[in-house]
């Protein structure tokens, strides 16, 4: 069962001589929640961008299910089942909340290029969309224009949309950022729930979230892996404490 779903070999990226990520070897096991943490500017988002090909790696290889996907286009990677969310909220502001989720579900129908087909053909997706909205507590906003949602709710919507893709591997970039405590708890619980049957790789600064659900943690610093292991192992590593967590008091924030 502990099969590797995502593997990077010597992944690196430099911007005009500044190397943001260097020689990262990740090994994400199927069915786990894997957290990527590290100080600001360590290269976490950049890693995500490389994995989803929003950035072109300067070096290294990416293997998904043993398959080399290093040279594939972003949308192709998405269709393989690797779906990401963004650090700064990414929704479709002028679509309704329901439509937001439906856009993601729609790909499953295989009719995305059918410009001659009626839009009503999408209504079959409504039920599933509402279900997903319910999961993130947004069912009451289904017909609201997304623009009008508060920040935290937009984040929740983003997770629902990502879930709609039925991803094999979900990449979440700071999913709880900007959320109220209630929401954080709900989303944490949500992630935990949806993690069953899929794999999650997440960046998160909220140690409460990380400690409660992450099976395995990789700590990046200055673009390189500093430590790896369970929360317990990592949080007791003095290097990590110094570079990232601060005093243990802080870790419990």
């Amino acid at each position, binding site marked *: 069962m502990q099969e590797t779903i995502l593997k990077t070999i010597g992944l690196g990226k430099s911007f005009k001589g500044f190397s943001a990520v260097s020689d990262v070897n990740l090994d994400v096991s199927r069915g786990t929640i894997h957290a990527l943490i590290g100080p600001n500017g360590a290269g976490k988002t950049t890693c995500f961008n490389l994995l989803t090909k929003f950035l072109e790696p300067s070096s290294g290889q990416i293997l998904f299910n043993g398959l080399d996907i290093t040279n594939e286009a972003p*949308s192709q990677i998405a269709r393989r089942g690797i*779906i990401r969310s963004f650090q700064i909220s990414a929704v479709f502001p002028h679509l309704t909340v329901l439509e937001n989720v439906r856009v993601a579900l729609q*790909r499953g129908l295989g009719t995305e*290029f*059918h*410009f001659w087909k009626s*839009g009503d053909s999408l209504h079959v997706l409504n039920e599933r969309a509402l279900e997903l909205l319910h999961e993130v507590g947004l069912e009451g906003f289904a017909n609201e224009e997304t623009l009008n949602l508060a920040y935290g709710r937009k984040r929740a919507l983003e997770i629902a949309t990502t879930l709609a893709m039925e991803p094999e591997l979900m990449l979440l970039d700071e999913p709880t950022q900007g959320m109220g405590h209630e929401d954080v708890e709900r989303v944490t619980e949500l992630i935990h729930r949806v993690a069953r049957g899929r794999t999650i790789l997440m960046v998160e600064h909220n140690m409460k979230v990380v400690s409660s659900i992450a099976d395995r943690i990789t700590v990046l610093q200055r673009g390189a892996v500093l430590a790896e292991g369970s929360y317990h192992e990592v949080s007791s590593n003095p290097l990590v404490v110094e570079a990232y967590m601060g005093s243990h008091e802080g870790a419990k924030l």
Partner: protein
Amino acid sequence: MNQKTKLLYGILVLIALLLPFQDFIYLVFAMKVLCFALFACAFNLLLGFTGLLSFGHAAFFGTAAYITAYLCKEAGFSPELGIVLGVLGSGALGFIIGSLAIRRQGIYFAMVTLALSQMIYFLAVQMPFTGGEDGIQGVPRGTLFGLIDLKNDVAMYYFVLAVFLFGFALIMRAVNSPFGQVLKAIRENEPRAISLGYDVDRFKLMSFVISAALSGLAGSMKSLVFQLATLTDVHWHMSGEVVLMTLLGGMGTILGPVVGAGIVVGLQNYLANIGSWSTIATGFIFVICVLAFRRGVVGEIVAYYKSKN
């Protein structure tokens, strides 16, 4: 579509059908409006629903006009064949220009399309078969399917109307189709659409080609209605005009471009007698529209009804 809208469309179609039975509106004028309305609708598909401002749509309109005019006049093709080939031609050109242009965004997209269409213009001036600045004149309207003689203005009118309705329905359908939903999503947030697995460039290209082909359809029809294809059809002024029509009518609304086309063509026609004042008057209309009726005529009406409800 709700009941009221359906009723409105029904009434409009009925009026259009009855148009030949009156004297007040000149039929050729009505045909011109329909051609440009189709052109503007096709353009709106790109601007209003994909968020791409093309400043070179005259290239498609004109290319199809030239192809149809040439085939019908010099090669003796039947009108339906001439039109089909014209549309295919502009669709193909749309594919080429589109593939180059969609790689860029915003104002750059506009400028690339402008540049490429300037090259088409250059070709139209230079190539022998276009007849230079005289254009291709005296294009025969021919007989449709070997049955209907299009020389008759009424027959031609119904033909144009049928083609327009076909194009209009297609666009309306496309906008609300699954494809249209994805386009809307792309316009709203492109990176997110990519991350959901949509090959954004293919969608943009597709809508570009559809828009180009339908613009070509309008151009082909125009060349038959007026029986000529000239440089005006490929000039950047034409590209500008279609932008104006769309905006005046209300971009992103279904009926807006039709209304806009009616207004612009009507202005051209009825202001034609006042010479330089017509330029000034047109200028004022734009300024006032932008400052006061930004949503365009149809957009304003829609907004008014929305605010009332």
